């Protein structure tokens, strides 16, 4: 029975590792300038976690194999090095490992959150509500008009609660249901929640940030590949949560200018 358990544990451990080693299930390929930092941090962690996982499981299996049901007489063997060795190993090896992971991981985090966007970054506002994202471009004046929550009306398509009659800045704002951005241009994303918490998760872009009602957060990123990607909501927001998404279209600068003109005309 013990030997069977040992074999089972090893089989499970190896079977669990196969999809990881074979890259069977992978996130969408990275299209951002900062994503490689996250990916390499993640892969380094996978190596350390994978080695720890396999080592622990296999060691456990070996000892179960060896000692299950054993009825030896005489002196018992104790683990070489004893408890002191094991505790020391845990403190030193694992301690160093996690400190290193923590320290190096800080770099990726800092790139995303601690560096301000460049001055020429393109501002786009995204508003999350049950259960859709809407995007707002400031238009030629480069300024967003203020939001008046009491004026939000889906019937008249005043999704952001703009008041162009009184607010000059609002008049040229462009509101869209999908997000288009020029490639290789830094985007400064201003996040606004209309009702409850949502999240802005673009796996391909390695960007993930919750919307916090009452608190406007901002993110910045640069996409490097033209294409169409999905923006999904990952913070439980109600019954339509699973269906809340928008598309992110990364275009060449020329295409983007065209797109923006077309959108402005349609407003």
């Amino acid at each position: 029975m013990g030997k069977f358990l040992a074999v089972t544990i090893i089989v499970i451990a190896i079977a669990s590792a196969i999809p990881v080693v074979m890259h069977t299930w992978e996130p969408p390929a990275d299209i951002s300038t900062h994503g490689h930092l996250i990916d390499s941090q993640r892969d380094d962690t996978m190596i350390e976690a994978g080695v720890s996982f396999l080592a622990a499981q296999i060691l456990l299996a070996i000892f179960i194999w060896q000692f299950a049901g054993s009825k030896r007489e005489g002196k018992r063997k104790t683990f070489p090095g004893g408890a002191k060795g094991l505790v020391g190993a845990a403190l030193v090896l694992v301690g160093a490992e996690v400190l290193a992971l923590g320290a190096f991981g800080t770099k990726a985090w800092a790139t995303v959150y601690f560096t301000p966007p460049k001055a020429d970054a393109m501002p786009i506002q995204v508003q999350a509500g049950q259960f859709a994202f809407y995007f707002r471009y400031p238009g030629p004046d480069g300024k967003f008009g203020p939001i008046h929550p009491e004026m939000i009306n889906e019937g008249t398509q005043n999704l952001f609660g703009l008041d162009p009659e009184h607010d000059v800045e609002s008049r040229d704002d462009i509101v869209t249901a999908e997000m288009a951005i020029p490639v290789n241009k830094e985007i400064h994303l201003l996040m606004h929640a209309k009702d409850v918490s949502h999240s802005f998760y673009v796996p391909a872009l390695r960007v993930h940030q919750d919307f916090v009602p009452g608190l406007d957060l901002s993110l910045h990123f640069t996409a490097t590949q033209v294409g169409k990607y999905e923006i999904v909501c990952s913070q439980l927001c109600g019954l339509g949560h699973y269906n809340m998404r928008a598309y992110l279209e990364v275009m060449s600068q020329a295409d983007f200018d065209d797109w923006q003109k077309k959108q402005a005309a349609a407003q």
Partner: protein
Amino acid sequence: MSTAGEQGGLGKYIVVYLCMLAVTGIEVAIAGSNPGGAHLLPIMLILAFAGALLGVLFFMGLAAEKRSLILFVAVFTLFVMATINYGWTDSFRVLMGVPYAK
């Protein structure tokens, strides 16, 4: 059970009593002469802690208990009370991070 406190008269308690009232008096004096301002909070907290410490040590008799109980209560409570204060940084963000809402 703890027999401390039975020795000695009421003198100690009356001193503590007066000190606690004095703490409140000082608090009122400071708050009254100096209304508003974030710097008021640390002063108030320090004074409140001082008053509370007097109460815990003498009125609740912790000072007369065994050292182990003092340590247990102090370490446990102060540690857990300290850890609930992580949230403050976010309260400042809620205050200041609203550039685009109304």
